[in-house]
């Protein structure tokens, strides 16, 4: 099964649209209340980063499956991609409290804690792609 849906983020409304889409998918897969909130919040942070630092980009989400110890695991994968300026120092943005936007600086490290898997790929002047996964327990 491969259902992918993407939300374009080029305004503040894109942030709301992305998290609504994420919540509804998380609900469909069978995530509980708390994980729905975690996933929705993580998407909100990722979409906001796109809007804030790259002006535009997209957030795509899909259901993923994996055989792990003879059991089929299901989860949600979220890919947030932009062609913005990129992140010069990835280690720095992963530190709690670091912010260049006057925010709380809880964004990316927070997202990492909310989700099960987190990877970031960023090239200066080319863009940033952040991929996160949350597995159903």
């Amino acid at each position: 099964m491969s259902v992918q849906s993407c939300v374009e983020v080029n305004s503040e409304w894109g942030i709301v649209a992305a998290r609504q889409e994420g919540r509804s998918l998380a609900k469909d897969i069978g995530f509980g209340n708390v994980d729905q909130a975690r996933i929705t919040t993580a998407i909100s942070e990722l979409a906001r980063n796109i809007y804030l630092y790259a002006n535009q980009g997209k957030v795509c989400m899909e259901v993923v499956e994996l055989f792990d110890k003879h059991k089929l695991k299901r989860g949600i994968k979220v890919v947030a991609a932009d062609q913005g300026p990129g992140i010069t120092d990835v280690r720095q943005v992963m530190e709690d409290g670091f912010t260049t936007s006057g925010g709380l600086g809880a964004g990316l490290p927070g997202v990492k804690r909310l989700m099960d898997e987190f990877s970031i790929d960023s090239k200066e002047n080319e863009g940033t792609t952040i991929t996160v996964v949350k597995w159903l327990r």
Partner: protein
Amino acid sequence: MRIPILKLYDYLLISIQVELDDQTALRFQEDLLNKIHQEGSSGVVIDLTSVEVIDSFIAKVLGDVIAMSNLLGAKVVLTGIQPAVAITLVDMGVKLKGVPTALDLEQGLEKLQQELER
């Protein structure tokens, strides 16, 4: 979209019933401060029962609005934070330090009274 602010004696009551986008949150900040100033309110209860997502930006706006209200002389109590939202906020590392909270509106008004008597 505007969040309605209700007046009850010296207090202001706000129940956030909409999905908070950035603009709505920032407009609310301004509206609330103007209302406190205009009415001379001493206390504010913001009820978050219907709020399903508080990300770091919304948390910052809420924290700011509380600090700003305090500068105007009004105490603010947050009520009705959902368990899932509380868990997410702590996971994220967002601490609303020193912010009085209560389970529901009723307890929120009691808390406000205690805060104002201190």
